[in-house]
Structures are given as structure tokens and as C-alpha cells.
């Protein structure tokens, strides 16, 4: 390739520095191929596509601020006495990890700011991944060919939470120590191997003197390496698949409508990185987070009321709280801690369902086509309802983590809050499912009516016979296309196969298919629209 392009570039603009540099680079790297391939690649525009960008950019902010923090942090649990300038902590015995975190906060100019940037960016990182996942889910962007990229993104979500938790545990203050104590209790509940797992994890008994160093290795080496690897895979697939787009006039399964990387997306996405960084910086400047000097060094004895984990761990902490009393059995001389195992199984099951959902839906629809046009959530009512149920389930678990604060802030009985949340954990998703499904079907009917009869203009006309009607105005063909261009699936009809039998797997699939598609609103056809146009008032 380079042999073809080189003479051209040399003869045309070999004089300027840029051209010379480009030519130098291309002759050694063949970079021209990449520029030609990707330079004018088209990306579609939509605000919801920015959520994934926020995740990526906050991760870069985490890397930058985290690298700064490693210059000063000492991942050691060696006992020392704080001798920095912050008076209330002077002379207090603590680990080197805690002392160096205090030094970052009080003795390094800008250190507190960078700690707060790092922590806020981490919170935003997990939050934006979560919102990005919800966007993907509710628009059906996980369908073929993107199922594997959904799984990669799911792994990133788990890695992000692991990064968050390991980071939270590093300063070795009272809160982080109590977080680790809870992890220790959870690990010990695992049947057969739990006691030894905890023993190995902490390098002996809890808390030991190894855990901060080990978590640090995970936090700054292993987990970031995995995150970077999976981000690279994730983005490579975005390039290979090309970005999805929302339904709209001119948009088809065979095209991408939008703006080219060079120059428009380079400016917009590049600029957006600085906006995300700037907003994090603004929050970190004004809003204090994790003031470890108020908590003090880890000591197994004290703990204050109303302590909260970082938001993304809340669902796990809340689930632990929602278990009714007495769920522990002693069978065969061993202890079975169902009060821990049940939450682990429920959360694990929930996460597994999230990870494999694309494959379930693909099996139900049997649709083997590629899908590059997104669904409007209303046009996949059952999926949207399942998503709403899942969000509700997660939200109740999450609220559980703040049960004590809810009780104190609203002056309620703690027991009442827990019992209400226990009921909501089961009833909430069911109600959310049905309400969402009805809303989706209602919106679909409204869309159908608008496509067929136009929208209500608000103009009331009295006919000669005395009848009042509201004048409907037709929508443009562009608006109509957005309303009617969605997939319509019919429930699977059960038919015997060639041997005259109906295998169980097919019955199961038909059951799922009925559940998904029994209630459906069929998009209007061209014929119906033409007819509807004549009938319209």
C-alpha cells in the first residue's frame, strides 16, 4: 500500500513539515491504511450514545488521577504514628497506608483534590457504565451481531465494581476496614472452603497485615490491565460492527447516517472528554468525599451509625439487610449460613440473567438477522417491562443499604422500613413489569393511531349535523416512518415436527414466545395508512 501512495505524497506536498512527518511515519508503519479506513468513518448522533463515552472518559480520568496518587501512597500496613500537620490525628497509631493517605490529603498540595477527583471519577465510572447498559438493554442494541460485546461490557461492569471496592479498601480507615470485615464474613459463609479462602485472602486472621498490599496489586495492576484489555475489545467490536442508530427516515439496516470521525467527531468526542473531566474536577473541587480524617485509622472496635458503602456496592449491602432473621442451619455438623448464601445466590443469579439476556431473547425470537436499527423501548414491550422489573429489583436492594438512614430521616421504625422493603423486593418488580408493559402497549397504540389518522390538532369543529369533532392533522412521511418502522413478532405456533411430535424444547420456546409476543400492536401497513388517510376527520 505504502509503495503506491508514497510517490504521490512526495510529489504533491513533500515540502511541508507535516507532509514529511506523515510520509516518514507511513513508510514505516503503513498508517495511511488506518487513516483511510477510519478517518471518515461515520458515527450517528444521539445523546444516549454519550453514556458509554462518559464511562470511557471517566476511566481515563481515573487512570490519570490514580497514577498521581500512586506517587505518594504507601500500600503497607506497617504500624506508624502520624506526624503530619493535621493536629487531631497527630501521634495516633495507624498503618502506613492510612498515614500516607493523610499525607496526600494534608501535606501534598493538590493531593486532596486529586483524591477527590479519583473517587468522584470512580463513582461516575460505575454509574455511567450502568446507565450505558440500561440504554443498550432498552434499545435492544445487544441483538445480533452484538451479543458478545454485551457480555464484554458486562464483564467491564463487574471489573469496575471490583476496582471500586479494592480502591475503597486501600486507605485502611475505619470505613474501609469495616467493608473488608463484611467481605470476610461473606467469604467465611461459603460452604467447605470459606474459612480457608478468608485465611488465604487476608494472609492469616482478619485483618492481618497483608490485605492492603494485596488489594493494591489488584487495584493498580491486575484489574486495570483487565479493564484496558476489555475496553480495547469493546471498542474494537464497535468499529467492526459499526455503531447502531435510532430508527428514522433514511436510516436502514445497511447504512450508518451521521458525521465523520475527522473532523466532526474528533472535535465533539475530544471536546466531550474535556467536558467530562471538567465536570468531575468541578465536583471534586466543591464536594468533599471520603474524609478519612474524620473516621480515623482502622480499629475493629468502633463504628459509627449511618455508614454507607459507595453507591455501587449498595445493592449487595442492602440484600444482606433484607434477609429475615434466623436463616442459618446446622446440618451434618457444619454451618450453612443461608443469611449470606441466599443473597449471594440471588445477586449472582440476577447478574447471570443480565449477562445472558441477549441469548435468551435471540432464542425466543429465533431471529438470526443482524440488527443495526435500535428499538424504541415501547416497541419491545415485554423486554422493556422485564428491564423495568430488573431496575426495580435492583433499586429495592439498593434502598435496603440505606434502610437505617431512611428510618432516621423520615422518623420511621427501622423494622417497618425493612419489612416494607422485603415486600417491595418481591411485589415491586411484578407491579413494575405490568405497569411498564401496559404503558408500552398504550404508547404503541398511540403511535399507530397517529400514523394512521394524524395527531390531534386541538382544533374543534362543529359539523352541520351538530356533531363536534377534533381535526386531526396528518404527520409527515418522515415522522410516520419513525413511528411505523419496527419489528413485529408473532407468538410461535406449536406444530408437530416431521415425526409428528412436539419436543419439550419447542414447547418451552413457544411458552416464552407467547409470554413475549402475545400482546402486540402490529405496525400499520402502507395500505392501512392510505385507507386511514381517507377516513381521517
Amino acid at each position: 500500500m505504502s509503495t503506491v501512495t508514497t510517490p504521490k505524497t512526495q510529489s504533491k506536498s513533500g515540502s511541508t513539515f507535516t507532509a514529511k512527518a506523515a510520509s516518514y511515519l507511513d513508510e514505516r508503519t503503513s498508517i495511511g491504511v488506518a487513516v483511510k479506513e477510519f478517518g471518515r468513518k461515520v458515527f450517528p448522533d444521539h445523546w444516549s450514545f454519550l453514556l458509554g463515552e462518559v464511562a470511557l472518559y471517566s476511566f481515563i480520568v481515573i487512570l490519570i488521577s490514580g497514577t498521581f496518587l500512586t506517587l505518594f501512597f504507601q500500600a503497607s500496613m506497617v504500624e506508624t504514628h502520624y506526624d503530619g500537620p493535621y493536629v487531631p490525628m497527630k501521634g495516633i497509631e495507624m498503618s502506613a497506608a492510612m498515614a500516607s493517605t493523610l499525607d496526600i490529603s494534608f501535606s501534598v498540595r493538590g493531593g486532596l483534590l486529586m483524591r477527590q477527583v479519583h473517587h468522584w471519577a470512580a463513582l461516575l465510572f460505575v454509574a455511567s457504565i450502568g446507565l450505558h447498559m440500561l440504554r443498550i438493554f432498552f434499545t435492544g442494541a445487544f441483538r445480533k451481531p452484538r451479543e458478545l460485546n454485551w457480555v464484554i461490557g458486562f464483564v467491564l461492569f463487574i471489573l469496575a465494581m471490583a476496582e471500586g471496592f479494592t480502591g475503597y479498601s486501600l486507605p485502611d480507615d475505619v470505613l474501609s476496614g469495616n467493608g473488608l470485615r463484611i467481605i470476610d464474613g461473606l467469604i467465611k459463609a461459603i460452604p467447605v472452603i470459606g474459612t480457608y479462602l478468608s485465611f488465604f485472602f487476608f494472609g492469616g486472621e482478619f485483618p492481618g497485615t497483608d490485605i492492603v498490599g494485596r488489594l493494591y496489586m489488584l487495584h493498580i495492576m491486575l484489574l486495570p490491565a483487565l479493564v484496558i484489555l476489555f475496553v480495547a475489545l469493546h471498542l474494537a467490536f464497535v468499529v467492526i460492527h459499526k455503531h447502531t442508530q435510532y430508527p428514522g427516515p433514511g436510516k436502514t439496516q445497511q447504512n450508518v447516517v451521521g458525521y465523520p470521525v475527522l473532523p466532526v467527531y474528533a472535535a465533539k468526542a475530544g471536546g466531550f472528554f474535556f467536558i467530562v473531566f471538567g465536570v468531575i474536577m468541578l465536583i471534586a473541587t466543591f464536594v468533599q468525599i471520603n474524609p478519612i480524617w474524620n473516621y480515623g485509622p482502622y480499629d475493629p472496635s468502633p463504628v459509627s451509625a449511618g455508614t454507607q458503602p459507595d453507591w455501587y456496592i449498595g445493592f449487595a449491602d442492602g440484600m444482606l439487610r433484607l434477609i429475615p432473621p434466623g436463616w442459618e442451619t446446622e446440618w451434618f455438623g457444619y454451618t450453612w449460613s443461608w443469611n449470606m448464601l441466599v443473597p449471594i445466590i440471588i445477586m449472582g443469579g440476577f447478574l447471570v440473567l443480565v449477562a445472558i439476556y441477549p441469548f435468551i431473547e435471540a432464542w425466543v425470537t429465533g431471529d438470526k438477522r443482524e440488527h443495526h436499527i435500535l428499538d424504541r423501548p415501547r416497541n419491545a414491550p415485554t423486554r422493556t417491562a422485564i428491564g423495568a422489573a430488573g431496575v426495580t429489583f435492583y433499586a429495592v436492594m439498593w434502598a435496603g443499604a440505606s434502610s437505617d438512614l431512611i428510618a432516621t430521616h423520615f422518623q420511621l421504625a427501622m423494622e417497618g422500613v425493612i419489612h416494607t422493603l422485603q415486600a417491595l423486593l418481591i411485589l415491586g418488580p411484578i407491579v413494575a413489569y405490568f405497569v411498564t408493559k401496559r404503558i408500552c402497549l398504550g404508547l404503541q397504540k398511540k403511535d399507530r393511531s397517529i400514523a394512521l389518522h394524524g395527531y390531534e390538532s386541538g382544533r374543534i369543529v362543529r359539523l352541520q349535523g351538530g356533531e363536534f369533532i377534533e381535526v386531526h392533522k396528518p404527520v409527515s412521511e418522515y415522522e410516520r416512518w419513525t413511528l411505523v418502522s419496527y419489528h413485529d413478532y408473532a407468538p410461535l405456533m406449536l406444530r408437530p415436527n416431521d415425526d409428528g411430535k412436539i419436543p419439550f424444547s419447542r414447547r418451552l420456546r413457544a411458552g416464552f414466545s407467547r409470554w413475549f409476543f402475545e400482546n402486540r400492536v402490529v405496525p400499520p401497513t402502507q395500505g392501512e395508512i392510505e385507507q386511514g388517510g381517507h377516513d381521517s376527520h
Partner: protein
Amino acid sequence: MADEATSNSKAVANAHSHGEAGASAGTAVIASDAVQNPGLPPHRKRVTDLNPKRAKRAERTVYTLFYISVAGSLGSMLAYMFFPIESGELWQIRLSTLFIGLGMALALLAIGVGAVHWGKALMADHESIDVRHPVASDEETREASSEIFKIADEESGFTRRTLVRNSLLGALIAFPIPGITLLRGLAPQDQDPVTLLKHTLWDKGVRLARDHGGAAVGAPIRAAEVTIGSVFHVVPENLANAEDVLNEKAKAIVLLMRLDPSDLKVSEERKDWSYDGIVAYSKVCTHVGCPVALNEQHTHHLLCPCHQSQFDVSDEAKVVFGPAKRPLPQLPITVDDEGYLVAQSDFHEPVGPSFWERLK
């Protein structure tokens, strides 16, 4: 899958709307007279395309923002220099953080807003269209790659030489085992967690000492000091001499309370474990091990702030609410010759969260 086309009478072959000709549409219904895509709506020009003055203004906005960014960066640097924090006063640290942060935020946001505005208002605004191709590689490539695998198999004899292949698989499965074995070293070789978890520093005659109270920390407690309704956070007096202080403390922390003896429900086997209404319970929650630090005086309930398990001190610390199952283990106490509270023995059961071998 083939019968799905017939099971949905309205379904027709669907080559036209998707990339892969012949890929099954599953249970999707495709109407034969579906509405046709009207194509891209006509392009609408931006105000900066129509009005050169507005374009000029956008240009001014963009470069002004970039200059502001430079000012922000320099301002942040000046703030670094002129807001010292070395006194350790919180307000000084706050000021330094505030101005360094403000400068940086300004620098970043101005670049970001400027670049986005440049992209949106000034860069060419015509929508482009890329053509998508099916993700799957074409037939020819697929055949070529499966041919490569076939040749590689023939040339190596991978499927033919089964003994070679299977022994290799065995070796590959076995080789990580020593690596995993090495991980045994994560915890001390000569210790056994089950034994460790069953013993604390408490023993016959060990005095109960204060874990709070400033200068009084570590001081032993006389029974007379414990008035009705008071709560003491307690550690063994010999804790400071322990090898791993935090490890021992994590197991040995105790709450000491005196109740009106008539309020106490005491079972037969524990009737000697308290002293004149003074009872001592492990402070480590039997759920996941947080310190059960909150005391509700009038109900005699202890509350774990982590997951809200509640224990009734008047009834041998049995669980009255929350996810914990077991009561807090009781430390049998008595008084020594000098009037100090001492332990009669270690706890009679492991403290803290449950574990598999707890009953062994």
C-alpha cells in the same frame, strides 16, 4: 427454524431489509405492503451556514474559550503557589483545593465546550452515510480459513495422532497445578484458621480493660465502676502485649453492661457467668462481623449499624431482629480479689461470623 416461516402465515422472505440474504427472521412478521423508508429528509442549514456574521461570532466564541482555558491553567498554577497548606489548618487546605480545582475545571471545561462548539457550529454539517456490510466474512474467506485448518490438521496429524494430542491436553491441564499449589503460601503454613477462630485472648483471670476514654484506655475496670445502665467497651488487659494486636482485638472486643438483675433472664447453665447484673458479650456481630456498637438503653437492645441485627442483652443477647441468627457469645466473668472484673475463661464458642467448621 424452517417451519417458522410457515407457522406465521404473513411472514415472507426477508432479504431486502437486512444484510444477510437468507438469515432466518424467526417469528418476525414482515408485512408484504410494509411502509417504505422515505429516505433522508432534506438538509436544513444551520444559522452559521446562512449568516456569515453568526459564523464569525461562533469563531470568536471558540477562540475566546480556548484563551480562557489557558487562563484557567495558569490560574491553577498560581493557586498552587499562593495558597500554602503546610499549617495543616483545614480552611487553608480547602482554599488551596478550591482554587487549584477551579482553575483546572475552567481550563478543562473551556477546551471541551470550545471544541464541541467548533464541531457543531463551524465544521461542515452535511450528514454522511457509510454502507454496512454483513459482519460475517464472505463465503470465499470462510472456505479459505477452514481449508487452512484442514491443512494444518493434516500436516500435524492433530486428529490422527490421538495419543500425542490427548497426552498434550493432559500435560496442559496439569501444568498450572504447581502454580496453584504455590498460593498456599498466601497464609502461614503452620497455622490452621479453624483453631485460630476458636480462641481469643480471654482466659481465666484476664482482667477486663477499657477500650475508650482517652488516657484511661487499657485501664482495668472495677465492678463498682459499672453503674446500672452504663456501657463499657472492653478489651483484655493483656491485649497490648499480643503479637498481632489488631487480629486479637478483632476477636476479643466485648461490651460490658450492668442491668437491674431482675431484668436479666438467665438460663441455668449461665447463672454464674454474670456478676451482680454485670454481663459481658462479644461485640462482634454473629452476622458478618461488624462491631455491634449501638446500645438502646431502655430496651436493652444492641444494634449492629452495618445490617441492623438487634440483640437483646436482657435475654442472653438473643437475636430480636435482622439477618443474624446466633446470639452474641457471652463472656463468663467474675471479680478478682482486688475488685476488678476478670474473665472466668475464654468464650465457650467461636465469636464473630459463622463459618463452615464452627461446630467442629
